[in-house]
């Protein structure tokens, strides 16, 4: 079976890849583009570990096919830090000890960034419901929620506006 040639952007950079018709974006990122920061937890869209944004929209990359990405712009965890500077969410996750094993962390960071882009001042309840699609088995979510709220406070300060 012939593979498909796809041109897209990943974390701002132009990429080209070949993929099978049934190959998911998750497998394309991990196996074709060597971007293994996006994690596989279930491949059925239930755990959120593979969360990315496609043209700004939060998506489980296991539920999208590689061939659908022609001309699209994908953001993954590898694109969150700018050079040596961590994104405020990444910094706050470390400061709050909001990760234990760290496996769900890339997906949760992407999901949390998508929330703060839409709602820079979410309530605790809004954070909890927004992140309800991202499973974490280690933390009980307590410190994750705190880290997101703290990052939001940080990002609302004028210096970060």
């Amino acid at each position, binding site marked *: 079976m012939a593979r498909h040639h796809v041109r897209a952007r990943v974390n701002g950079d132009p990429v080209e890849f070949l993929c*099978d018709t049934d190959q998911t974006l998750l*497998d394309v990122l*991990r196996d074709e583009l060597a*971007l*293994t*920061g*996006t*994690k*596989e*937890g*279930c*491949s*059925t869209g*239930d*755990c959120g*570990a593979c969360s990315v944004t496609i043209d700004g929209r939060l998506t489980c990359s296991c539920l999208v096919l590689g061939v659908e990405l022609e001309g699209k712009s994908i953001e*993954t*965890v*590898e694109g*969150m*830090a700018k050079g040596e500077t*961590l994104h405020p969410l*990444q910094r706050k*996750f*470390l*400061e*709050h*000890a909001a*990760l*234990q*094993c*760290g*496996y*769900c*962390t*890339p997906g949760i*960071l992407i999901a949390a960034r998508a929330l703060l882009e839409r709602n820079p001042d979410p309530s605790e*309840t809004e*954070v*909890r*419901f927004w*992140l*309800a*699609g*991202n*499973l*974490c*088995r*280690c*933390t*009980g*979510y*307590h*410190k*994750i*929620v705190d880290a997101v709220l703290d990052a939001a406070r940080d990002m609302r300060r004028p210096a970060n506006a």
Partner: protein
Amino acid sequence: MPDTTHAQDRMLKIVGTRPIRPDGVPKVTGIARYGADFSLPGMLWGKILRSPHPHARIRSIDTSRAQALPGVKAVMTAADIPDQKHEYVGPERTAVNFWHVTRNVMAREKALYEGHAIAAVAAVSKRIAEEALRLIEVDYEVLPHVIDVEEAMKPAAPLLFEDMITRGIEPPPAKPSNISKRLEFKLGNIAAGFADADEIVEHTYRTAPVHQGYIEPQACLARVDADGQAELWASSQGHFPIRTLTAKVLGMRVSDLRVYPTEIGGGFGGKNVPYVEPVALVLSRKSGHPVKIVMSREEVFKACGPAPGASMTIKLGLKKDGRIVAADGLFKFQAGAFPTSPVMNACMCGFAPYDIPNVRTTGYDVVCNRPKTAAYRAPGSPVSAYAVESTMDMAAVKLGMDPLKFRLMNIAKPGTPTVWGTKHTHEGYAQTIQALMKHPACSTPLAKNQGRGIASGYWFNNGGESSAAIHVNEDGTVLVATGSADLSGTRASLGMMAAETLGVPFDQVRPIVADTASIGYGHLAAGSRTIFATGIAVVDGCNKVIDDLKARAAKMWNVSVDDVVWQDGHAMYAKSDGKFEPLSLKAIAAKRATTGGPIVTEVSVNAGGVGPGFATILCDVEVDPETGSVKVLRFVTAQDVGRAIHPAYVEGQMQGAAAQGIGWALNEEYIYDDAGHLANAGFLDYRIPVASDLPRIDTVIVEVPNPSHPFGAKGVGEGCFVPSIAAVANAVSNAIGRRMDDLPMSPPKVLRAIKNPNA
């Protein structure tokens, strides 16, 4: 009795603070590499064919068509693995029978559960590997199956092993059964104890099997050279035990297998034993290529873990004044398809929190056509605590006593005998109860449809074999290498203990997890043992390094080493006559070549002196009387951890344990259809708690130091988990006025209990 204790017997600069973990940045940038993130040139993808039947004899397996598919490089079955002797080896509580282990890695005579591995292939792509699996022809003779523990114990039940005679019964039964083992512990005289009782409370409970639910599926990468030397990148809770078990299963020499620890995406006991590792190694040997295997979530549910379901009866004999004078516990545990559930832990831990003069616990280990159970966070103890602490709750109600005061009156103290013969030796339990008594949650009033649950629990914690190497680099930085897998931030805590001991800043220390060829043996990161046992190895190693540094300072000053002391990261001349300026670790490191060469030490320990994990939990819930849905309003865990090395990660353990306990109590269960197929092998239908299900989790860290650890640590990961299920169950029971004795307390069950209070 002392108040809630926080250890302050010495001035500490680093232990007890909250630095950023040294392995943190790669984990927030996506660079950290987990089991599935490793690749090698020429790598193949391995896939495993699994049984569609819960119980079937394997008449034959024809792999020829799969083998012939272009792109397939190797096909294997159990015929490619040596068979093992049928014998139980190791201490009774953790005994292993490799005849079973090898059959769980790959089925031989029979498939014993849906998802049991039958054969495997390695191919140049995932797609070809999957296609090859469809070409393998297995001739099954489907057999009747048994899923439920009570059904499996009946004389007419289908037998998983036609020759299994129950161990632990004298004389041995004449007929085989699915009961692998019976065990019994006794203390005092329970007949006399119950005869002496004013009140008796007895109740029966059932729990469903639940999965550990780590988010990272099992994954590994293996390569085997033509001379038999092999390398394995494995996501596990202990690369040394994985090496031991895998080498044994494959008949390899241990020295021929080098295992590299990958970052691990959660384990909770579920990654203590190999599943995919021996398969990948055989496929690599046969193909001559590196082979990667990554399980799907469905495979994880069907073939790994879970924790056992159980059927239990608890009977308590009480005096009117609240003293417990007799206790009898019956624990029937599902082992899954092969013997050895944690029922022995259940028998030992259930009544361990209490000083009861007359106790009996009886356990049955029962096989059934489900995946072989694996450890899950204090294996066995949360299940027995659910039954015992529910009965304790009933007893407190019957006696009209406050549940905390009732427990405090009966607690085990140092000197209290345990049912397994030794005596408790540690304080710490009372302080967890007293901490809750003082907590504002305890006096928060409850509204309609709300209930409060209290529960306590005991876990052994663990010590054992650990190794640590300390390297002082030429610029005064320090490498701390251990063989303990880091599931949760233990590198940070181990590095903190090293920095504290050496007297250097935390960021001067770099803690790493070393592979099996680069450090001495280290046992599993399990049993809440890492901070205790590996911590002892790290601190011992640092103290040896300090001795070396003092000797070098003495040499530089040309004085006796007896006149050199180590303080705040400096060698000081003890006579303090101002003759010598203190020498920093860095200054001595700079002179290493002229003072004896590299400053390196490696220490291995078999750590004893373990301090137990006691915890007490308060949980408030609200039950929706129309839907039966339960909302957890408040959750407070008080745990004696001995000493919190990094309090943020201690809180994290307690909070994560709360979430898992709430899931176990309210939602999680393995659901089988009549054909013996798992009906909910995915995160959509096997529902673990999400952020919007949970409240904030309040933590009270109690510190009653363990004198056997240099900083007093006891362990944290499991003790806090033990009472969590019971606390939720007691809260729900109190909210609806009906004892909830069948887990999970899903909305339909709660609704039934509300609508039919006498059913």
